[in-house]
């Protein structure tokens, strides 16, 4: 843990040296999700609701996904860059250090400019939370927090899987973007918008709906059973196959080289 904080301050120190570039990159990140937001806003200027969800309600979804993603991205950027770490030999260097490799990958990259997205998520929440017409009792607040926290863990596991795949092939990696970037982009609308089959897939296979959709129903009082409140926690076991896959990939790397 202390070691992680050391890495943290090193990265901070290193990136702060390029203040102007940092600022522009953070601004760029902000704009990327801002245009997505504009897209939603423009649509809702025309349509009042989609699948029964109003604009502020959809924004709750959007902000949740954005915040969960940017937290996961900030922490797990090292895994996102993992193909490069393997191909330039940096990973071999990590194997020579007496620490768990996963920890080293985690600590290897912390892009503070990604926080631009986090800032935007907070701003959107500031608007959406009051405007959505929700009665914010304690249980609803807890639900929202669970959504974000479990969401970032699930995204992080997706990054882990992405990195683990690069143990096997660097080429076929792109499709994981469907779930990471795609999860964030498509997650701007509640997943029921995409139809029953999509919803089922996102519930049982890649558990994005477990923290984006069902708890949302609870918050909007369309479902009252408190089971829905704790559904994000059901997504956590996703970490087990994700980590297992990572370990498997690691052992295979050690036996076949790169």
């Amino acid at each position, binding site marked *: 843990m202390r*070691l992680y904080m*050391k890495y943290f301050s*090193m990265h901070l*120190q290193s990136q702060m040296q390029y203040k102007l570039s940092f600022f522009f990159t953070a601004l760029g990140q902000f704009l990327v999700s801002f245009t997505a937001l504009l897209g939603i806003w423009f649509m809702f200027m025309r349509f009042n609701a989609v699948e029964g969800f109003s604009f502020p309600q959809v924004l709750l979804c959007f902000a949740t996904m954005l915040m969960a993603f940017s937290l996961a991205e900030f922490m797990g950027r090292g895994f996102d860059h993992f193909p490069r770490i393997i191909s330039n030999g940096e990973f071999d*260097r990590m*194997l020579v*250090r007496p620490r768990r490799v996963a920890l080293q990958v985690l600590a290897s990259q912390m892009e503070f400019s990604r926080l631009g997205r986090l800032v935007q998520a907070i701003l959107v929440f500031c608007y959406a939370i009051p405007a959505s017409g929700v009665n914010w009792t304690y249980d609803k607040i807890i639900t929202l927090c669970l959504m974000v926290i479990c969401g970032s863990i699930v995204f992080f596991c997706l990054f882990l899987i992405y990195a683990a795949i690069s143990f096997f092939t660097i080429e076929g990696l792109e499709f994981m973007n469907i779930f990471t970037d795609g999860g964030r982009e498509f997650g701007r609308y509640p997943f029921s918008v995409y139809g029953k089959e999509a919803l089922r897939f996102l519930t049982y296979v890649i558990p994005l709906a477990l923290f984006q959709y069902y708890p949302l129903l609870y918050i909007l009082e369309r479902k009252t059973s408190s089971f829905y409140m704790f559904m994000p926690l059901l997504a956590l076991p996703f970490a087990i196959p994700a980590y297992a896959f990572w370990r498997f990939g690691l052992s295979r790397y050690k036996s076949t080289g790169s």
Partner: protein
Amino acid sequence: MIRLEGINKTFRVARRKSGFGRAVRALLSREHETIHALRDVSFTIEDGEMVGYIGPNGAGKSTTIKIMCGILTPDSGKCEINGRTPWRERIAHVRDIGVVFGQRSQLWWDVPVWDSFDLIRDIYKVDAREYKRNLDELVTLLDLAEILKTPTRNLSLGQRMRCELAASLLHNPKILFLDEPTIGLDAVSKLAVRQFIKKLNAEQGVTIILTTHDMQDIEALTQRILLIGKGRILLDGSLEELKKSSSQRKTIVFEYTGKDPALCEGMTSVEGREGRLVVSLEPSICSVSEAIAYISAQVEVIDISVSGISAEEMVAGLYREYHI
């Protein structure tokens, strides 16, 4: 102590095709090539030895090193380093070794060297007092005092290599793997690095395994050479022995005035410039004294030096001999 017995390792590599038609076919089916990187590799290295590990590119050097570091798992065979099997007990094993990769740096690019060292200390959990002691010693030996505060990106290659060496020794490893440590360095830095490595081995008894293509490194540092070619250990012996047994050829350097002399049988020109001639001599055909007399008869010789075969030539000859 390092002991390898019967290590084997093969890789499967997909073959890439060139040209349009073959590329389309490659889209549908993939051909694979099997590469035998290591075949029945065995050797033992005692504590405190300094070994040069040489061989042409692709011979299996880095594969062996990776196995010894615990990064790679061999297909078969045993390897024991200080009582451990490297790939099975990676974290414990790696704590006792240091590695320097000549071309890839382990220092963080934008921060001062001192901060990189500090982070490494944390990674290896080095005791504070021991760390200070090591650091002071390394700073003195490698002359790092002025560059500790400089970010790595501002260092020259020579300075960086000295810092790399220090970084790999901060945790007092018993074994040091050096992969091309002097590549790209200027003459002064090379000498400094060699000096340091020699001292490290002599005074601290650190076992050193050196892979290099620079034969001067080999001559200056190592007593023992392991030659690997096409995955097999071809030679394992001391440098002197190898030199003696490989060839009796001599190298003579003439400095002279006058026009270029002709050579007699048994002499082959290695380098010829105005006023300076380097010949390789086969003493069985033409003895050293005969050669000197022959040349002196043609030109006015200012200076002569006679030496045994250089490590460079010996190794090139070995490569030829073993067809690697």
